[in-house]
């Protein structure tokens, strides 16, 4: 909502300067976004094309280097055939709104090149119908960097009105607030003196459930519509509105002044019987914006028997629109249901000033006054004869009544307020009230649909009194509760544990490209986003790897081949709330280190990534004895070079998996610098250690008796995994065998094709004596027998 100081002074008797007005507006919750000339002045600059080249990826487009003044050169993509070196033209900055189509200019990527703004044609700026090529300016008359539109209007104060304050969508509402805040006196509304001298020929029928509760109208005959007088045009231009013609400008003026939208129809283009009804699905309607809309059901329509005249409270129809030739008009001042307006406009994608106001709430009691005022000004500026006003529908608008106990203020705000101050504020805001023993019976003015209960009154009082008057109460240190749950601690610990192993933490979007995500197991179509911002980000990710791989590829393009990156975040397995788990996923590509004077290059391998996962799991509190690996993996890993970690007691939920990412996926993603290794830790499956530190240590038990080491080498079938062998050997004598190390695995040579040689080192130690040769030999024999029995293994000679 834009206002000017002079417009404000139509309603507020004040000597305050613009700085004081702005700071007061901010203090009472009417946030000032900017003060200055209108957008047009700030966003359209005279600019010079330094160089115009063919766009590298498009034949019909040009890529221009544009000087926008003070030495700033920008790249702008332009389609005009006359864009050429040295041309002086009009440049629209990002943020500019193009007058022709009301589109907002953004920095956009056009066929692979970022374009910072737009070069404009006369038609785009609403200057003429000339749309062939961009404007060509005379370098004698225009200077690069200057505003193209002349800056002769008063500075506008642009206020961001919160959705609750519909009353401030009119200058008068803002004036009332400023007056209450002590900035001046609110000027009484001028009385209308309407001379009605003809009979209103129109009959309006409001059907039930139409979405229109009330409709007041009059007919004005024999006017001469024309360009508006300067005072009116200046007022509208200053707040960024294009003047059209006197009749239309007057309805806009009343809307901006009083938050009272009106609509004027060319009476010669419509029948005398007007029916307000609800739309039926499939009905078509050509609106003032020249768009042909196909309607859903439930929208409020202003109709004749044969045709639709307007979408009530949203936009008028093209067929009955006002032109400079219009002689007779039918003027509407109505009340529409906010929810229906909002629903209909959203479905059709229309965002009009009227819709914006009706969906927030319009004072029903301005219906008649606004209509009369408009008729009076039209009569004054365009002549004509005015009919009597006819009102249909509801006419009695009840005020809301609420009780307010002034103690509530102290309870919510923390400090007291005097009765005198309450009375003054309520009075100035237009509330009527009676007070008895701190309890107020308040009658809410009809322009305040946002005031419904006690706390709303509290807010009004503190808002005007000033939030700076709220007494700050310092918090007290309180460590009586746990800050984090066990799961939350686990996650935070895991993030830092992985980072401490040389991985860079990243944060990527929770969505990704469905095309890439579907290379991984869990992707399903329920994860598709209905309204994605782009096809590359069109689905919730089912795998943490999708984005990591996309970004790793970008890093390779930045010449960073060796990478260790990880992310901790949600992945999704369904579209219902809660169908997500937290995963830590990481990838490593390239060399562990490059050649140096000590060693040669070292490539990443599966064991590098496995160790990282293993160490982290131990650090997360998993008992080493409980940890088990299975050589079985998901299809997104290389089938022979990947595995999963489980707790031996729970083979259902993997704690983690790791391996080489399936080379097929790497090829699909066109990552040229492979192989890529990855891991995932499923934090939801990691048990939370719920032990006090005092319980964590069990009895200290060590043996001081001599330990013996024995080496064995077995020939064994390839299919037997190391973990199985180790587990079997520990089971031979859990008390005596302390440690088993595999120090060699060998295939080929003189060993049979399906076999391998596995060399093991065992540490043997008793808890209560020094073992003698006989006991050691017995144990050795048991080990050899177990290997034979369990794996058909033979001792290698």
């Amino acid at each position, binding site marked *: 909502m834009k206002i000017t100081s002079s417009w404000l002074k139509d309603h507020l008797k004040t000597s305050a300067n613009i700085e004081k007005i702005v700071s007061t507006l901010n203090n009472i919750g009417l*946030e000032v976004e900017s003060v200055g000339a209108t957008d047009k002045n700030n966003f359209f600059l005279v600019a010079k094309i330094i160089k115009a080249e063919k766009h590298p990826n498009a034949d019909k487009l040009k890529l221009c280097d544009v000087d926008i003044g003070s030495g700033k050169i920008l790249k702008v993509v332009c389609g005009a055939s006359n864009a050429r070196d040295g041309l002086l033209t009009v440049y629209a900055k990002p943020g500019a709104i193009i007058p022709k189509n009301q589109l907002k200019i953004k920095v956009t990527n056009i066929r692979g090149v970022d374009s910072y703004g737009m070069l404009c044609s006369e038609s785009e700026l609403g200057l003429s119908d000339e749309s062939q090529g961009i404007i060509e300016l005379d370098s004698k008359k225009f200077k690069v960097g200057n505003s193209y539109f002349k800056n002769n209007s008063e500075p506008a104060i642009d206020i961001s009105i919160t959705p609750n304050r519909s009353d401030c969508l009119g200058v008068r509402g803002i004036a009332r607030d400023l007056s209450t805040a002590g900035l001046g006196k609110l000027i009484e509304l001028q009385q209308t003196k309407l001379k009605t001298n003809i009979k209103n020929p129109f009959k309006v029928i409001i059907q039930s459930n139409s979405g229109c509760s009330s409709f007041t109208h009059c007919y004005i005959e024999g006017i001469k519509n024309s360009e508006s007088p300067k005072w009116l045009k200046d007022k509208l231009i200053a707040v960024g509105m294009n003047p059209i013609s006197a009749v239309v400008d007057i309805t806009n003026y009343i809307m901006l002044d009083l938050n009272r939208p009106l609509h004027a129809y060319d009476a010669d283009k419509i029948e005398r019987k007007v029916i307000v009804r609800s739309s039926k699905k499939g009905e078509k309607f050509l609106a003032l914006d020249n768009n042909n809309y196909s309607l859903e059901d439930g929208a409020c329509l202003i109709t004749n028997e044969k045709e639709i005249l307007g979408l009530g409270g949203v936009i008028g129809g093209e067929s009955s629109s006002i032109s400079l030739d219009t002689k007779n008009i039918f003027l509407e001042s109505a009340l529409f249901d906010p929810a229906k307006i909002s629903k209909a406009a959203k479905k059709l994608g229309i965002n009009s000033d009227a819709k914006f106001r009706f969906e927030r709430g319009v004072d029903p009691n301005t219906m008649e006054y606004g209509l009369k005022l408009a008729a009076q000004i039209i009569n004054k500026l365009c002549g004509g004869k005015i009919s009597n006003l006819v009102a249909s529908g509801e006419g009695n608008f009840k005020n809301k009544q609420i009780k307010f106990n002034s103690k509530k203020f102290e309870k919510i705000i923390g400090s007291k307020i005097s009765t005198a101050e309450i009375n003054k504020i309520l009075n100035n805001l237009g509330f009527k009230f009676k007070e008895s023993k701190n309890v107020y019976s308040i009658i809410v003015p009809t322009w305040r649909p946002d005031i419904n209960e006690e706390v709303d009154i509290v807010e009004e009082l503190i808002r005007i009194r000033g939030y700076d008057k*709220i007494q700050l109460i310092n918090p007290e240190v*309180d460590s009586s509760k746990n800050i984090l749950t066990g799961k939350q601690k686990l996650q935070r610990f895991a993030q830092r544990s992985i980072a401490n192993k040389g991985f860079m933490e990243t944060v990527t979007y*929770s969505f990704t490209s469905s095309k890439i995500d579907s290379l991984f197991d869990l992707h399903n179509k329920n994860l598709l986003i209905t309204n994605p911002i782009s096809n590359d980000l069109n689905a919730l990710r089912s795998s943490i790897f999708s984005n990591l791989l996309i970004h790793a590829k970008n890093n390779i393009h930045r010449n960073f081949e060796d990478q260790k990156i990880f992310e901790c975040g949600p992945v999704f397995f369904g579209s219902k*709330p809660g169908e997500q788990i937290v995963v830590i996923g990481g990838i490593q590509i390239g060399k562990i280190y490059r050649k140096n004077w000590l060693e040669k290059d070292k490539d990443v391998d599966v064991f590098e990534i496995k160790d990282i996962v293993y160490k982290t799991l131990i650090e997360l509190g998993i008992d080493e004895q409980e940890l088990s690996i299975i050589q079985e993996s998901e299809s997104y890993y290389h089938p022979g070079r990947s595995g999963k970690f489980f707790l031996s007691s729970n083979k259902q939920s993997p704690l983690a998996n790791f391996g080489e990412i399936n080379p097929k996926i790497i090829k699909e993603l066109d990552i040229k610098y492979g192989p890529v290794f990855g891991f995932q830790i499923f934090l939801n499956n990691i048990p939370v250690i719920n032990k006090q530190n005092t319980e964590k240590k069990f009895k200290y038990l060590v043996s001081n008796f001599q330990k013996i080491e024995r080496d064995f080498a077995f020939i064994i079938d390839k299919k037997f995994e190391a973990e199985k062998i180790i587990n079997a050997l520990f089971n031979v004598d859990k008390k005596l065998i302390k440690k088993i190390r595999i120090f060699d695995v060998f295939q080929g040579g003189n060993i049979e094709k399906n076999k391998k040689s596995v060399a093991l080192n065992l540490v043997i130690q008793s808890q209560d004596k020094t073992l003698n040769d006989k006991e050691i030999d017995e144990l050795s024999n048991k080990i050899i027998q177990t290997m034979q029995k369990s794996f058909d293994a033979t001792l290698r000679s």
Partner: protein
Amino acid sequence: MDEILHLEKEFKSKIDQSENLHKIEQVKSEAFGKNGKIGELFKKITTLQGEDRKNFASNLNKLKDNINNLINSKINLFEQTEINKKLSEDRIDVTLPGRPITFGKIHPVTQVIDEVTAIFGEIGFSVAEGPDVENEYNNFTALNTPPHHPARDMHDTFYLGQNKEILLRTHTSPVQIRTMLSGKPPFKIIAPGRTYRCDSDQTHTPMFHQVEGLHIDKNVNMGHLKGVLDYFIRKFFEVDKIKMRFRPSHFPFTEPSAEVDIGYELKDGKIVIGEGDKWLEILGCGMVHPNVLKNCKVNTSMYQGYAFGIGIDRLAMLKYGINDLRSFFETDVRWLEHYGFDPLDIPANYRGFSR
């Protein structure tokens, strides 16, 4: 006795003549080894009687100690010389670079979440969580934003499915609803997390982070809200004094509502928080609307309280001088290296936030 003197002379001369470790070891073995000359002489003690025996034994022991000491000090001398020789020869250039090390980093968003958690944790808040995918009720309706409320238009919402019932949460506020529905007052939580809006340009990304705060108890008023935020901002920006401004605003789920600005100035193109006459909006807050409490079955005649929502990425940008929001989510290893944190830099009250 002559034998003793003779041996003494003999070994002293041998010791003198030994010019290396090997030689002296030989002398040692000759004296004290198996059948060593001094050892052998001890056998003679048994053949003597009386005063002679006493004198002989005493002199022999003296000789043994004497020779032993001489040999050992000579051995020691040779060993020292050898070690010194080795040490002086065995020299490498330790300024040569060692094996390459890679350092990991923690993302600024994680770091800031941990900082925020440490600050609020100290004054009694605990961390709550909620899902990224939400239903329309928790994200809007329960927060006093019924269908067709204009405030819904201000959130560019991502939807899953055509009926618009399931969405990506547009703020962390639905965690308020989940927390209150699943427990009994009092409530004192913060909820950091990912939030989503379909908006993407220079200053907006379709995903960003917020931290929600909620404190509901019997006598929590707006003064407490002001105090908590003042405390938070001072601690977070690590300054003693902060210029803070509460401005009336509107959120459907709070009444009264406020936006909070902090004072700053630009020094050499960098934002300095806490001084200067410029204002920067950093958060929204207010007293929880009674309708929200009612929707969560909280007795409004007994309980009231405040809520706030802060943009985490924005906090990180301000504190650490990061000027492009989009760069947070681009995984450029150079950016991560520059703006990331050492994993051992764990923000905690006992050790402070900065080293």
